[in-house]
């Protein structure tokens, strides 16, 4: 159980740190590379802003104890976001090596989700 707890916290904190950084970047970091990347995957800015708000709300829902149904929605949203982002790069013609690292976060969110349920069930 102790190992599960450690795995849960490491995966959860990594996912949430990445989500919050990405949300912060959407609103406060304006770089040429960032703009070109958005153009390459053709995702409009308003969608990025909407997702950034979703990322912050999801982080709160996952970190605040309790509210299991809300957590379920947050995990669903995080998974759709991360899997969708990976798909965006794959579908826009980026080579596998360019988007493969994103799969790490898809796996991390699933690790966090399954360890969360294991801890809840115990």
């Amino acid at each position, binding site marked *: 159980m102790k190992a599960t707890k450690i795995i849960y916290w490491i995966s959860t904190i990594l996912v949430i740190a990445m989500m919050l950084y990405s949300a912060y970047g959407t609103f406060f970091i304006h770089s040429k590379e960032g703009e070109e990347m958005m153009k390459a*995957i*053709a*995702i*409009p800015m*308003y*969608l990025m802003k*909407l997702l950034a708000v*979703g990322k912050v709300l999801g982080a709160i829902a996952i970190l605040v104890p309790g509210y299991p*149904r809300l957590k*379920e*929605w947050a*995990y*669903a*949203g995080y*998974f*759709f976001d991360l899997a*969708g982002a990976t*798909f*965006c790069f794959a*579908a*826009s013609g980026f080579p596998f090596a360019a988007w493969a690292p994103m799969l790490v976060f898809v796996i991390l969110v699933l690790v966090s989700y399954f360890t969360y349920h294991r801890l809840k069930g115990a």
Partner: protein
Amino acid sequence: MKATKIVYWVSTLLVILLMLFTAVQTFAHPTNREAFARQVQFPGYMFEMLAIAKVLGSIALLIPGYPRVKEWVYAGFTFDLAGAIVLFAASAVPFPVAQWAPMLVGGLVLLAISYISYHSILKATLSNS
């Protein structure tokens, strides 16, 4: 409970019809899809991904059991409809509200009814067993 079941089935089937209808439209009319995607500055490939997700979600709602999967489907359908509302509202090419709001807001209301009645049926089943 019988009334709740009827409300559940009517609302759920309407939601599924809406999802499957838009999914079919996405694949049946690629020219329209791409023209619409340009208008709302949204990548066309995303509509294809969403159409596949809508079909998978509809299947998951129809298969009995799997409450956690259903929870994710309700979350996904909510994000989809709410996202679509933002897409129309934020579009550079203005769309008349009457053209999209009734379907999308109506869809969200039906989804909420389906979700609430689903949980009250689930709760009753759990307390009976």
